[in-house]
């Protein structure tokens, strides 16, 4: 009975995993089919790069990839520039107000995007930020800053205060402390924070759809242009999607543990 149960649950777990992953798998293999072949559900076929070629021919695909890379990495760097000093202050020099500040920071994340869509749209229109890359970088920085602050704060809190105090007695100033002590000690935590922020910006689709069109559009809103009703292009859609999803899927798998910490604001580690 015992080993039988073990086998049963193992097989059940795998069957569920395969069902959940299947749409992604299906997208992956359809990307290598011809456009005609995409309409027949064959698992075995002669793979072709035709769809990838026509994705590149049909639109300036690299342009949108670069937009996505540029926007997500820039906003992540901006988040760090803002969050690290504040987290440093809050974790090593806490006052009575620190906890309150942290909770307030968190509460800014509770604002639903749709609640402020209209004013942001108008402000962006007046500031000529509509359909611009700096505009999206700004929004993504503000959107992710609470998560960045909380994560960096929890990583800084794990550094024993005694080490910093020892350095200070030896005459290190704030910047040396940050650079020679905190940076190497918290590097693993900070890099996974960075990866999480890149993932969140890369996949963001509310603001990118509403605030950008062709020029500054990242991949999320470029892919949406495949929803045009005139004719289906399953193979091309799959090829374009696969290229957009694959790098972030790999990053996501690498950072899964930090993801939990970041998305629950440290409530679950």
């Amino acid at each position, binding site marked *: 009975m015992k080993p039988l149960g073990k086998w049963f649950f193992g097989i059940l*777990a795998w069957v569920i995993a395969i069902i959940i992953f299947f749409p992604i798998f299906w997208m992956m293999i359809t990307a290598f089919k011809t456009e005609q072949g995409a309409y027949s559900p064959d698992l075995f076929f002669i793979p072709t790069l035709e769809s990838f070629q026509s994705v590149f021919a049909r639109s300036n695909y690299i342009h949108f990839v670069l937009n996505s890379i540029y926007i997500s990495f820039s906003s992540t760097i901006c988040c760090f520039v803002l969050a690290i000093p504040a987290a440093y202050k809050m974790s090593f020099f806490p006052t009575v107000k620190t906890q309150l500040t942290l*909770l307030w920071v968190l509460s800014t994340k509770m604002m639903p995007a*749709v609640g402020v869509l209209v004013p942001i749209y108008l402000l962006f229109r007046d500031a000529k930020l509509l359909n611009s890359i700096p505009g999206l970088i700004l929004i993504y920085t503000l959107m992710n800053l*609470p998560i960045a602050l909380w994560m960096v704060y929890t990583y800084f809190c794990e550094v024993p205060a005694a080490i910093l105090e020892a350095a200070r007695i030896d005459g290190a100033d704030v910047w040396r402390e940050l650079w020679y002590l905190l940076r190497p000690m918290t590097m693993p935590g900070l890099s996974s924070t960075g990866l999480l922020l890149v993932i969140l910006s890369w*996949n963001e689709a509310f603001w990118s759809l509403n605030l950008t069109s062709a020029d500054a559009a990242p991949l999320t809103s470029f892919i*949406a242009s495949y929803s045009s009703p005139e004719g289906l292009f399953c193979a091309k859609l799959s090829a374009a999607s696969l290229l957009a999803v694959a790098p972030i899927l790999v990053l996501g798998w690498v950072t899964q543990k930090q993801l939990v910490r970041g998305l629950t604001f*440290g*409530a679950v580690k």
Partner: protein
Amino acid sequence: MSVETSVHVVESLTSPHSIGQPSRLKSLLMVPSVGVLFLWMIVPLAMTIYFSVIRFNLLNPNVSGFAGIENYQFLWESGSFFPAIINTITLIGLVLIITVVLGVLLAVLYNREFFGKNVAILLVIAPFFVMPTVSALIWKNMIMHPVYGLIAFVLGKLGFPAVDWFGDYPLLSVIIIVSWEWLPFAFLILFTSLKSLDHEQREASAIDGAGSIAQFFYIVIPHLKRVIGVVVMIETIFLLSVFAEIYTTTSGGPGTATTNLAYLVYSFGLQQFDVGIASAGGILAIVLANIVSFFLVRMLAQNLKESR
């Protein structure tokens, strides 16, 4: 640990000024973050409130002046408001039930050891990293399509007629897609939390004769209760703004069948350019979110106190 603490004590006795004394200079470090977040929170909010009580249409500059509650009244009486509220609540409610129930069951299942467990976990969490526009289009055109879709193919092999998902069950289709995206989130968090469950407690209960089902209800569920609360509240905040999935698959239709609050605000504000009415809708979304976040922040505050 005790060594560190004692060092801390000794040093704070010998050099009181270097420790725990925040200078004004150090407080300045917080100014940029807190400042931009303050602006981000207060400026758009104030503008939304203001716009919601004035007459403001981008296409018609002659419409102006104080409107009082007219915008809210118009929204209330417009045919799409109640469907939008019902759709928003149905979508959030069903997605929460699906993701939390399946998430708990999956987490319990994956808490066992089995062959290739780590790889299987990667497959389960993968949908969370797929951008919403891609998920929506893949599901619509390749999985749920009534002619070429995978589901239609499987049903056909089994001798059943194909289902026109987006034609006949548009809201359900959106709910399925959104649940598929958020199940990994619920699973990952519940699974992580379950790993910290004390094994001795389970063993003790097993010795006392508790079966798997009794263990599930008397040990696993109470352990996960708080984390389930966190998952529910975080998902609710994000699900209030579900937009890309609707935008790319149904554009809110047919009729108002898949129009939620987010899509309603978009269609009033950015399609009909009626800023006033769209802002009134935005305020409603903010009020709903605040009710939820009130409880979430209280819970996280509790957590912060315990961990420090």
